[in-house]
């Protein structure tokens, strides 16, 4: 599961770090670090974190709409 956080929007509320601590962590008081490639087991946690983000800064892709083979580099997934 791939994700990206719009850090222009992010205001460090840390809801995501609370709801999906294996994917999102605070670095210092305010900066957010995240794993852009979360394990499938984290899916529900990440979905909850994305929904709870007060500024809606977390974008998670839809695994059902899997991109075609031409755009996938070997070993990318």
């Amino acid at each position, binding site marked *: 599961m*791939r994700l990206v956080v719009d850090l222009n929007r992010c205001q460090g509320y840390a809801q995501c770090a609370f709801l999906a601590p294996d994917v999102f962590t605070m*670095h*210092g*008081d*305010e*900066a957010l670090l995240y794993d852009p490639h979360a394990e499938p087991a984290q899916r529900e946690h990440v979905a909850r974190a994305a929904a709870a983000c007060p500024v809606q800064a977390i974008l998670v892709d839809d695994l059902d709409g899997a*991109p075609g083979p031409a755009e996938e*580099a070997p070993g990318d997934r």
Partner: protein
Amino acid sequence: MIGDGSIDRLRREGRIVIVGASLAGLRAAETLREKGFTGSLTVIGDEPHPPYDRPPLSKQVLLGKAAPEHTTLPRRLDVDAHWRLGHAATGLDMAARRVRLADGDEVEYDRLLIATGVRARPWPVEAEAGLDGVFVLRTRDDATRLHRRLTEETRRVLVIGAGFTGSEIASACRERDLPVTVAERGSSPLVGALGGVIGEVARQMHLDAGVDLRCGVMVTALEGDTAGRVRSAVLSDGGTIDTDVVVVSLGATRNTEWLAGSGLGAGPRGIACDAGCRAFDVRGIVTDDVFVAGDVARAPHPLFGYQFLSLEHWGNAVAQAEIAAHNMISHATDRIPHLWVPAFWSSQFGVNIKSVGVPALGEEILVTQGSLADRRFTAVYGHQGRVIGAVTFDHGRWLPFYQELIERTAPFPPPFPTLDRRADGRGPVPAEFPDPSVPTHGPTVTVSGYSPADRRITFTPGRA
């Protein structure tokens, strides 16, 4: 030929080519499909990888918290595009509406979006740049190579250039407990983007983290051993640094060479375009079928006197790509302008740095909240009596308020009291940007081109 009169046909069965398969290229492709474009879509990229995100490369990836190959950008939808990855565009024929590829193939378009971005500026001496252990950090492959080397035995890392990327690399190395020297030509880190007052705060952050920071010096040579591996660097002050990993972090170069001779208004500063992302040709005439977005574009901005701004900002790539995509399949009267307020972030030494507006245009700075000593503050930049930019260190939640001041062209210094204003904030002080004629690490916003305020032609009526 598909002109404005047949926009509906273009939307239905036109051919759109996007050159550049990174953030801007991907977001444009998604937006085209979201807005109902059902024709053929081709995305050309010189790297073999599907669109990936760059900000993590100098942060999470170097810290070992994310794998470089795991930075692929999520998709909002399946864009149903023909992806030509690993194929660089090498030429453009505007009359025949064709893009030439490195393998000799040609792709025809009705609308073209150029989003070729920038690349890392390499170390200028080719033989030295080729030494084993000399790196740049821009692409996923760069990050893979550098990360691998840092996990091997490293005696000392030398980072050349203390802009945002250089500072983030130094920060990650210290967090991994690697000895680091940073060499910066300017008087302090980040001085080109944020000025000397904030640069002094950045300088203290480097020192507190144990970085061997050398400002006001240039690296004049890199020296290798007989095996071709870098061993030391010579500084302009006569010093030498024993090092086995050098990261060259001297900013970026715009990828416009492939457009040479095409007739498009493209050069080292990027590709000039109007507020609707339509590219200009070399005669200064706006095209109607070639659009540009992202780091490679430079566009006039009304908040900054309609001067042309080049922005190497993540958010700009997203916003400009969405607007270019909308405009390229819309009637002239439905087009929308790109009025995004520049904004960027960096995180280094555990501090979240964010900025809006164009601080580099500011002459004075006022700390409106918090204090520089605590490294938790908001500072506002003034330009000709108005608020032109703001920066926060661990104070990001206040930034939207200051963005609004910039958008409203509020007076500087702001006349109202603010919460948590301390000794630093008693009055504005010079922002201490370096003299533009003195080379330093550049800012992330480049202001270029003429402003309408620069009247070059004066009409003088004849005498009766």
